[in-house]
């Protein structure tokens, strides 16, 4: 027998498949327990790709992560063995077509394995992407692409407290061009060429304050808003902090909505008459009152934002094809198993 044939026989060997599958099973069993008992190291491994996570983790704990490349190597070898068997079957398809089901499973497994490694090496995962309604978020992993949240509506249970779903109207843009638009909610992500965008959570943030202006009624003050005052003066909102704290001359933002403050500029005849912070709890600054801007705060202005998970897996579509091939394979397998048994068609035993 030629050396080439010997190598091919070894690569397509059934015993090699059993040895590799057994070894991979044992290594992954041990690895799963290492993962469980070292949660600090392995943390939420689903939040990142292996390509992002492994290099740093391997430097940090080479012994505890050693099982991963070992398992990868064994699975890759098992994948190569499966692929060789598939090629060998294809070469003899005319006489072995009855094994189509079994080899569709092989084909599916090869695709799934390739998709897994490709996705983890070339993909990325990001969580906690905050996107307020009406705004656009640039996708850092995809230069030129951005995501716009057109509308957002949370769905609550009967008590009105527990959120059940989050309905996001999202548009994926390439520059100004619309690539995809979808109502995104639980189990219904926006998918586009390996990108998958899902709702994770939502929240509200104060963006300004509604005030009562004598003679003008209620006016919404948020960054960029202007109020026209008598004698051609204008009051412009330069900034808004939901919670501010004085640190000398500066205002420092704090968390929550406990001490709202508006940074205002009063201008008239082309020049700034006054500029400063109006801390709502401290009352309207005297200069503003003198200039006729006796504002009376009424209620905070809120805007809703969605928190999105944005993942990119270039292998996802290949994985889907692999999964479907495997589904078809196992379905055919059942029928062919009983058909072969009826025909007394016994398999080759090695």
């Amino acid at each position: 027998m030629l050396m080439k044939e010997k190598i091919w026989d070894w690569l397509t060997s059934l015993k090699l498949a059993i040895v590799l599958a057994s070894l991979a099973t044992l290594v992954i069993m041990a690895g799963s327990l290492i993962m469980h008992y070292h949660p600090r190291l392995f943390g939420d491994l689903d939040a990142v790709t292996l390509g992002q996570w492994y290099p740093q983790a391997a430097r940090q704990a080479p012994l505890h992560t050693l099982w991963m490349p070992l398992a990868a190597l064994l699975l890759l070898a098992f994948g190569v063995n499966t692929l060789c068997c598939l090629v060998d079957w294809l070469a003899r398809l005319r006489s072995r077509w009855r094994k189509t089901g079994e080899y569709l499973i092989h084909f599916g497994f090869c695709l799934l394995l390739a998709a897994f490694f490709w996705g983890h090496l070339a993909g990325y995962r990001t969580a906690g992407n905050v996107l307020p309604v009406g705004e656009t978020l640039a996708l850092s992993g995809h230069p030129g692409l951005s995501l716009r949240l057109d509308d957002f509506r949370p769905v609550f249970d009967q008590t009105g407290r527990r959120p059940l779903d989050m309905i996001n109207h999202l548009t994926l843009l390439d520059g100004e061009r619309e690539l995809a638009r979808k109502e995104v909610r639980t189990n219904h992500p926006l998918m586009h060429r390996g990108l998958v965008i899902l709702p994770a959570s939502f929240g509200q943030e104060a963006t300004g304050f509604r005030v009562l202006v004598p003679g003008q009624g209620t006016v919404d003050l948020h960054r960029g808003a202007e109020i026209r005052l008598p004698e051609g003066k204008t009051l412009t909102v330069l900034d808004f902090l939901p919670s501010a704290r004085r640190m000398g001359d500066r205002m420092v933002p704090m968390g929550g909505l406990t001490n709202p403050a508006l940074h205002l500029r009063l201008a008239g005849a082309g020049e700034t008459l006054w500029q400063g912070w109006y801390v709502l709890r401290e009352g309207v600054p005297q200069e503003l009152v003198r200039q006729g801007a006796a504002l009376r705060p009424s209620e905070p202005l809120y805007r809703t934002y969605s928190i999105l998970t944005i993942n990119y897996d270039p292998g996802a579509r290949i994985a889907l094809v692999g999964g479907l091939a495997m589904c078809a394979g196992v379905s055919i397998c059942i029928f062919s198993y009983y058909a072969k048994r009826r025909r007394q068609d016994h398999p080759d035993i090695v």
Partner: protein
Amino acid sequence: MLNPDSVLLLQGALGLYLAAALVQFFLLGGERRALRRGALALTGLAFALQTLYLAAAWVQAGYLPVTNLFSTLFFFSWAMGGTFLYFELRYRIGAAGLFVLGVTMLLLVGALRRGPMISPLIPALDTPLFTMHVAFSFMGYALFAMAFSVAVAYLLPGFLRPPSMPPRDLLRRHNEEAILLGFVFFSLCMISGSIWAYVAWGYWFSWNIKGVWSFIVWLFYAGMCHAKFVRRWQGEGYALLSIAGFFVVLFTYLGIGLLLQSNHPLE
């Protein structure tokens, strides 16, 4: 009668399964055709009652009720009962499947102790992929349990093997069939679960311990499907592998849920 809040159907099914198991025990002493038919009829009737309850609960809820411990225990017992009935109808497996019958009753008792309660469907579970994932997984587990039961019967020494049990060669074939069918259903469970994970969380393979061990179960039985073509592993070797595989399944289903933290809690 068809009210899913009433446990009458389930209690009836449990009583019938118990009667069938007692008849099967009696048959261990020797073959009696009339009794065997009676045992089969009792099992069939019990499974019919379970199916009726499942259909009523499904119709009332509007979705396959597998959303809490009561409903999963019940569904698992239904899958176990169905598996036993299939092998009994097709091959008159009798005492070789007694373990499966026992587990069916245990699961039913577990479900009855919890009391009938069907949790409302939250949007995260409101997808056919979830239904398929759970249904296929329990069907796979039931078939792996059957393989275990048949493997134990296969390994029984000659003097302990009752005359009513199928011959060893048939038991070997039943074991292989149970493994193949279990692998088929478990593969469908893994694929539907992966697609669901992708649309729900944005990745199709989870490093959660349950996800990893499900892959281990799949890999183990994939290896077994190959091992049946190796002479050395046929017969006793294959039976031993079936028993080992079932312990891997038990750890994946029960061990992880009870001992470790997972995103597939038992409760």
